[in-house]
């Protein structure tokens, strides 16, 4: 992926395979290319060279873009940038309305999804009056209501208070239990330690890729990574079980 501003590559020579049901944490410094990679998976950005396929569909193939996006839910760092409707229920069903779902299906899915994210009873509320954690639950609900196979998350926890971070993270872990794929950008190695694989990106290249037990100890030497003693202890315990 080229960048006209920087006159260089944002991403170079990325080869990566993420299997269905995997939880992959994308870690790396600011400007390393993590968000670009996520946007390329969703076909918001196209690779200048090489190719990306999602369930066998090439993201460069314009005829496939809608199909690709139907399989993917995307949640950004700042929930306020993603909320568009004046009530919780309108926001959640917006994507389904666009895709022409029937009223009955919308009603059922709305109920199921709001229950899943813990926002039942909030249907008529104005999203702007929700707390930060509740807003992020709403953006996740709006993404999950279409039952995507893949959930892309660009630092979904960093703006939330500790309770919000814990609750949203538990929600993400609950979602992926149904053999769904989660790809999450995070700077927090304590969250990344729960993933199946860690992909460490540095200057647009994949520097390390593998299990947290394998990758995290080797990341401590990089100054863009902060790794607490708790993480090492957690990995040790995880390994012994």
């Amino acid at each position, binding site marked *: 992926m080229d960048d006209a501003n920087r006159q260089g590559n944002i991403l170079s020579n990325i080869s990566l395979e993420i299997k269905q049901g995997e939880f992959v944490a994308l870690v790396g*410094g*600011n400007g390393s290319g993590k968000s670009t990679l996520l946007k390329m998976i969703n076909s918001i950005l196209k690779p200048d060279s090489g190719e990306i396929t999602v369930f066998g569909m090439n993201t460069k193939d314009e005829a496939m873009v809608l199909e690709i996006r139907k399989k993917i839910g995307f949640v950004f760092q700042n929930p306020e940038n993603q909320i568009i409707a004046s009530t919780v229920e309108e926001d959640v069903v917006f994507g389904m309305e666009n895709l022409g779902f029937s009223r009955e299906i919308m009603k059922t899915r709305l109920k199921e999804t709001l229950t899943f994210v813990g926002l039942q009873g909030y249907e008529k509320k104005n999203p702007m009056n929700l707390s930060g954690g509740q807003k992020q639950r709403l953006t996740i609900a709006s993404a999950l209501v279409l039952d995507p196979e893949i959930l892309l998350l660009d630092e979904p926890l*960093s703006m939330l208070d500790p309770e919000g*971070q*814990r609750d949203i993270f*538990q929600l993400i872990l609950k979602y992926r239990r149904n053999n769904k794929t989660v790809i999450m950008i995070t700077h927090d190695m*304590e969250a990344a330690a729960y993933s199946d694989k860690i992909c460490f990106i540095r200057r647009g290249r994949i520097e390390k890729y593998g299990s947290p037990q394998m990758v995290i100890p080797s990341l401590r030497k990089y100054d863009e990574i*902060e790794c607490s003693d*708790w993480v090492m202890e957690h990995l040790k315990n995880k390994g012994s079980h």
Partner: protein
Amino acid sequence: MIKFENSSYYYSRKTPFETKALSAVSLEIRKGEVLAVMGRTGSGKSTLSQLATGLLLPTEGSVEVDAMNTGNKKARFDITRKTGIVFQYPEAQFFSPTVYEEIAFALKNFGITDDIQRRVREVLTDVGLDVTYLERNPFKLSGGEQRLVAIASTIVWNPDYIFFDEPTAGLDAKGKKRVKQVITTLAGDNRGVVVVTHDMTLVRDFFEKLAVMSDGELVFYGDKKEFFRDEKLMKETGIFDPFRYIS
């Protein structure tokens, strides 16, 4: 010194949506002091910063900046000049097409015309970005880079008191280190620094003094070690390491 005296603030006062965001807070923030403020979303942390910088005026009680009441219209320019606030969402405070213009804006706004180029370059380096960023579009930077530009555009006019709202959210460890250095330099330069944050690691490793807000009230003010020893208060105020209790 910034002095809160029994300060309360209500949003949408005298309407059906009236919400008390700050409740009778008394607090002093001195020059050279570094203070972390923690608490749940909606606990009043950001309101506190906005009252201290005169962006909001207390509904009850008073807020003074170096003995000037923030409600005094004649003192408004001086208060604005003495205080700076870096908001939680950096992109919300950008409006210039280049990083240079973004940082230089505040200087021009305050009528500071000397050495603008030098000041902008220096402050950019202080936050850890090199001069190649000067001509870049701030809206096209990564989230972390935007945050550093937002910090630079606030500290460039040398305010005496600086309020940071979640300055490390979205930053990598290198960026966090840079923010810590900026805070240390500012405090060493006898400026008062207040950092609103959810970042437990940052508070544990870096700060000494901590204020904790809960439902608009100041429920703790003192040595952070004392707070982290009080598990009951930590639980009540929702302050904990979020990923260490995942079931």
